[in-house]
Every structure is written in C-alpha cells, then in structure tokens.
C-alpha cells in the first residue's frame, strides 16, 4: 500500500525507508514485534507504527528519519538480483516513452524491479505494466514485492524467455522497454505488442555493438526517428572553500643592520592548506574525500548540518580577528572596502587578508562514466 499513494502515518505492513545519512539508508517492512539493528542502536518496529512519515526517530546512539517509500528511494535500497537501472536513466526513459497515467507498458526483463516500480508510479491508476522475466525466481520475487508494496493491481509479471516465445501481446501497448542482451530478437514481437496506432520503444544496452544491431532491426521493422542517448548524472558537492592567499613578501626590502630582512610570514603552515567544508555531511565512513562515489546520494542528518555550519562560522570569525598587523605588506582584498572597489570583485566570494572564501559546488571526483546507451524509436500506425 505504501507505494501506491502517499499516506501520512506508518501502519503495520508498510515498507518504510530509514534515513541515517546519505549513504546509509535501509528499507524495512514494518512487522509489529520485530526489531531492526541500525548503527545508532536497535529500533523496535512497534515504535514506528503510528508515527508520521518524515519523523525523526531516536535510537540509543543517535537518530534517524523514517521516510515514505518512493520508487527513487527503493532504487537505491532494493536488493540487487541483477544490474539495475538508476533514477537518471529511468527519468529519461519515462519522459521519452511519453509515460503518464493510463499508459500500457511492456517491460523485459523485470530484473530487480527498479524500473518497474518507477513505471507503475507513473502509469497508475489507469495504466498497466506487463513485465517479463526469463529467470523464474526473479519473476516470483518481483511479483511478491509488487504485492507487498501494494501495487500488484497495476502490473502483470510473466516468467518467459521473450527472445524465444515473444510477448504474445496483441496490439495493446503504448510503449515497450527492452533491457536484454539481444534486443533485436524481440523487436518483431514488440511491434506486435504495440497498439495499431503506434507507440514508442526504448532499448537499453551497455555496449555499442548491441545498439548497432538493435538500430538495424528497428529500422527494418519500420520504427522511425531513432535516437540513441547517454544520460549521465553529475553530482555537485556544495562546500565552502578557504583558499589561502600567498605571502608574496613586502614590496620593499627593509634595511636592517647591514642585511636584508624580509618580514618573515607568521606561521602559515596550517593556514596555507586549503580548508574545505564539505557541507554535505562528514560521515565517519568517509575517510577519503577524494574518492566519494558519485553514484551515491550525499547528504547529512540535521545534527551534522548544524555542526558544520557552526564550525564554518567559527573559522571565518577567527580569520577575521587574526593578525591584521601585516596589512601593509600584503595585497589588499578587503571585503569591507566595498565602496572603494568595483562591485564585480565581490560577486564571487569574500576575501580577508589571508584567504579567499567562497562557496563552490565542485563536481565529485568520480562520476558515472557510462551506464548504458538508450535507444528510442517511434512506431507510427500502419495504414
């Protein structure tokens, strides 16, 4: 029931999402009497029943949020039985297939049901998904999941190898989605599944050779307007950067009992390192900032937000106060001299005598480089 529509309070049997932090989420089916172990301690299911979705729930060692399930949260938390499609590709597929309430959709294979949940969300309550899976067990588990999630009325799961036996659907579908190693084997059958008035098709393939062969078959089957895309997600990490200003020394050399004395800079060792406040949480697992997985959603619990903000404020304040006696020796980038400088200089960040502070949302160092090629085509009605 919980996937079918929004509800405000948690009931026994609901599938809920526990949000402990960005890369720490769990999915949970509420079963009165059960207990779930989180890193913040045990959580009794009964404790959740009746709670409003979105509530903060306290465990012994911390708190978490209990969130309403969505296809997107399911996608990042579902048990993987196969490679799955992620929300970036799913979004684009949904748009390109013109899905909306009432659409009749054919999908093969069901896989782990990641895309299926999303399709059902979009086509309900008046549409229907016919999903085909050649792996018996996977088909069964998917059907069970749909049932638990309260969306089984919108979907028919069929265990069949469609490459051999076809969809056996007679012109009922608005759209067909294929995620098969040899999609070209089912194009003809897909054509038969699409309504007489025509429809849209999408084939997802990781390798270009599959795309080439699929395109050939689509074209020879009368599909037109073929377009092949890649759609890649780029996560941006919002953070405050404190870029140190270099010590370029005094502009005049000071004569001091016969030798040149330059004003040796006050201990810059620490201050000269770039300080970065990753706003999006500093979780304990995140040991190496350089290799944050871009596939992951990054976030933070509210507590951490407050922490980071306070830290950042303190840092800046202390910067404001620190030794300003060396003013005359350094180039001036004083923010408070606003009136004397061009406004333009001030539209990026803040400068004090030692640092250039600014907000940046740098792309994560690693990002998805490829998920698959999405080939779309239209079949127009045959006269």
């Amino acid at each position: 029931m919980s996937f079918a529509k929004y509800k405000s309070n948690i009931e026994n049997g609901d599938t809920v999402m526990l949000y402990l932090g960005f890369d720490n989420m769990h999915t949970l089916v509420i079963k009165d009497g059960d207990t779930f172990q989180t890193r913040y301690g045990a959580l009794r299911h009964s404790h959740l029943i009746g709670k409003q979705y979105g509530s903060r729930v306290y465990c012994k060692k911390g708190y978490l949020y209990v969130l309403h399930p969505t296809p997107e949260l399911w996608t990042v938390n579902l048990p993987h039985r196969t490679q799955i499609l992620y929300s970036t590709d799913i979004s684009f597929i949904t748009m390109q297939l013109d899905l909306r309430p009432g659409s009749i959709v054919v999908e093969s294979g069901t896989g782990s049901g990641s895309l299926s949940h999303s399709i059902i969300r979009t086509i309900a309550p008046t549409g229907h998904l016919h999903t085909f899976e050649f792996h018996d067990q996977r088909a069964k588990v998917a059907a069970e999941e749909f049932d638990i999630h309260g969306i089984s009325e919108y979907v028919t799961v069929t265990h069949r190898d469609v490459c051999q036996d076809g969809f056996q659907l007679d012109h009922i579908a608005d759209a067909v989605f294929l995620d098969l190693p040899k999609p070209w084997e089912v194009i003809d059958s897909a054509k038969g599944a699409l309504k007489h008035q025509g429809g849209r098709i999408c084939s997802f393939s990781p390798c270009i050779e599959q795309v080439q062969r699929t395109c050939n078959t689509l074209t020879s089957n009368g599909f037109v307007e073929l377009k092949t895309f890649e759609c890649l997600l780029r996560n941006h990490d919002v953070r405050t950067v404190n870029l140190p200003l270099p010590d370029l020394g005094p502009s005049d050399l000071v004569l001091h009992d016969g030798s040149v004395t330059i004003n040796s800079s006050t201990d810059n060792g620490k201050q000269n390192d770039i300080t970065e406040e990753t706003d999006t949480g500093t979780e304990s697992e995140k040991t190496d900032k350089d290799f944050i997985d871009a596939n992951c959603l990054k976030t933070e619990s509210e507590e951490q937000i407050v922490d980071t903000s306070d830290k950042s404020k303190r840092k800046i304040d202390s910067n404001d106060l620190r030794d300003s006696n060396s003013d005359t020796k350094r180039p001036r980038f004083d923010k408070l001299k606003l009136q004397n400088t061009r406004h333009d200089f001030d539209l990026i960040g803040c400068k004090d005598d030692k640092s250039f502070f600014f907000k940046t949302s740098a792309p994560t160092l690693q990002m998805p480089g490829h998920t698959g090629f999405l080939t779309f085509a239209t079949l127009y009605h045959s006269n």
Partner: protein
Amino acid sequence: MTSTDNLVKDGDRVMLKKGDNLRVFQVHKGREIFLEKMKFKLDGIIGETYGSLFEVKDGEMVKIVRQIENETSTDDKGIDTEKDNRHLLDQDSNQKLKQEEIEQMKKDGISGAHLIDQLIENSATFQSKTEFSQAKWVKKKKKKHLNQFTVLRPSTRLLCEMHWSKGPSRICNLRIDSLSQMLTMGNIRAGSTVMVVESCLGLVTGAVLERLGGFGKVISFYHGDSPMKCNLDNYDFSKEIMDTLYNYPLELVNSLKHKTELRVNDDVSMETADLTDESKCIKVEQDKDKSDNIVPSVENVIKDSNVVIDTKADVEMESESKNESESKTETRTESDLAEGEGQLKVADRSVEKTDNREGDCEQKTGGKRRGKKWNKRDNKVKKTKERAEAKILRAKEIVDARRIIQEKNVDCLIVATKFHPTPIVLALVDYVNPSRQIVVYSQFKEALEDCYVYLREHKGLVNYRLTETWLREYQVLPNRTHPVIQMSGTGGYVLTATTVVKSPN
C-alpha cells in the same frame, strides 16, 4: 488523450513534425497556416490517424505512405567512401536548376519525389558520385525539399523539444533530461498535490498536469501578469486535466503565512445578473486558532455574483459549481464591468492581466478562438461577459488555491523560474508535507548553491542533492557510429531535498 480516440478532429491542437522541426497548430477547417515558407490548409488531416505522414501538395495536406528507410543498404560503404571523398569538391554549385526554378516548381505543386528526380537529372555530378554519396545526397535533398509532415499529438516530450530548438533561453535552458529528472525526483504521480512555480512557458506545469493525468491538484504560481493557461493551450489537455489546475499569484505568497482565509461569496442561483448589483466577496479572515500576532481582518467585496463557497467543500464539487457559474453570467456589459472594477483589487488585477495575455495568444494562433465565429459586435458583448466570468473564476480559484496550500498537505514543490529561487522556496517549503520531495531548477548553479545554504539554515530537509545531467546523443550508422558532433553544454541544474518533520531543537 485516450487510446481509442486517435483521429484528428477539427479544433485539435496538432504538432507538425519535419525532421527535428516541430510546430503546434490548431486545426480549423478551411484555414490556411504558414510553415516552412508555404501556405497550406490542414483540412486533409481531419479524420486521419495521429502519427500519419502527409505531404503538402497544392496547398493541401495529402496523406502518404511512410517508407521504411533502408540504412542497412549502405552497409560497409562508409569507410570506402570516406577515402574517396578526398577528390571531391563541394558539388552543389553544379546544380543546373536555379533556386527560383525550384521554388516555382514547388509553388506549382510538384510532388517531393518528382522534384528530387528533377534535381538528380539536373545535377552535373550526381552520376560521378559513389553509391553511398548518392544516397547521402538524396537524403539531404529530401530533407530540404520534401514537404512531408508527421501529424502528432502534443506531449511534454515534443513540446520541450520544440521550445528547446526554438531557443532554450525562453525556457530557462531547461533541457528535456533535466525536466525528466525533476518529474521523477519530485515523485510526481496521479493523486498528488503539486505546487509549481515556473517561467518556462508552461512546460513544467504542463508536464506535471500530464503526469497527474486528471488525478490530483496542481497549484501554479504566476508572476503578476502571466498565469500559465495560455501556454498550456498547446498541450490540448482535456477538461478533466485542466480542472486539476489552480492558479495563484506570487504576490499573495507572503500573505499565506498568516493563516487567513479568503472567501468568495457567489450566488449560484443568479442568472442574468448585473455586475454592479451582485455581491461577490472575497473575505480574508484571520485564522484565530493559529495566528498569535494581530493581523487585520479584511474583506473584499466583489459585486459580481454571490456564490458562497463553503471552504470545507470537496474540490471536485467546487469545480462543478465553478463550471455552472461559468454558463450563467452571460448578459453583462462592459460598462457594468467597469463599475465593478473599483472594488475588486485582488482578483481584478490578475484577471485583467490574464485577459491581455490571452489576447497575445489569440494573435499568435491567428486571432480567432477555437471553433467559434462571431461578428465583431457579438464578439465584444460576449467577450465582456467572458471577462467578467473569468474574473469571478479567477477570484474563486485564488481562494481555492489558497485553501489548498494552507492545508499544508502539498506533496511536491517544483520551482523553475527566471527569478532567484531562494525566496520562493523558503516561502513555500513549509506548506509541503513531511517526507516529500522539493525540486528546484535553475540555469545557474550559483542560485541553487544559495538556495541550498538558506534551506540548510531553514531546516526541515534532508537528502540534499545538487545535480546536473549530461545528455549525449550518438549517431548510429553502419561504419559511421560516433557521438554527435555538437552537444548542449548546459541543460541547467537541479536541487532536490526531502522534507522531514521539523524538530523542536
């Protein structure tokens, strides 16, 4: 939009597609449209199936059979030819037919296929080309000279493509992949209540309406003078879908936080009512239960009609009564209207501006309203009445929308405007239910960084993500497969977050 009803009807909005060129037209029997330097009538498409291919012949649309492109026939020729191209110069100058002659042939109604034949015959170099080059040449010429259009139903996908190709700045650089992310990350689905603040020519509002499919509510916020209705005409939505749309002015957003209640007094039983005499009120009452500070209780009397809408009534009920009232205020005159205007401040302003805007639309679509013809005098009278009706409707709609928002039962907030989003998001985020998605789009990453910082301060959200998507198209052709030569450098940025119950600490 239902699947059984797939024939083009007079009055439908249709999209004409030729290659990547897409345009929307309303079908009017006997009326000529102007497209690709040609004037022609759309009569030929009436009664035909959507998705059919037509060719313009003698100013008429004539249905033709779609032929299967056989790209595979040039298989393995790509590479060989590339090498031989070294000796070729650009051969277009070797066409013996002059541009004027070609244009004349077109005016004379030559069929596309015949024209291509003529071009081949008059090309000095066609025969010297390789088979592959010939095929490429013919394809190029066909694209240029064949006036073949596919007739399509408008959809978000096609309208987004159309606007993007016309100039992305008009839709804040909102590329189709970004829009698709917004709808998905917003968990937009049938049954939801969605607040939309956009200035993307109605593209976002339309996309949400499409995804709701007539189930749920969309509250569309408009800046001063631009409710979305006009732009939504392109979608040709059914009444069921349009009935889920509510418009609310941005300039009444700050006032939302004082839990006041606007009420429209509007008598359903009124028939031939005089504008000046009717008593229609928008009452703004302080919700004393919730607001501790003193807010003046205000009342706005609008003397159009006196339908009293019970604010506790179901929304479906409301739209019905709204439609009734629509058909009942027929005989008012413009002068009546003028007298009524002095006191109608809230509703008036937006209605007036809406009318202007609708005027713009009319000009664009040929100065005529769908499927109706009047002589000028009748038109004026009717228009006056319509305007008065519209005013009442708009006022009621504002009241309705206000009530829906203040219920704080909204499932999604989507912002995609030319304005700085932060103030809008901060003003509206608290009306969204906990455990729901907010989605903020901007063509400028900096605007979203700012929004993010303020939201963090505001609290009540988790699971922030600031993302961008890259869209790369591939040319897939035998021996010529590669990413397309040009790509879009930016399709905008999306900030999403999940609302949670605000904790006291």
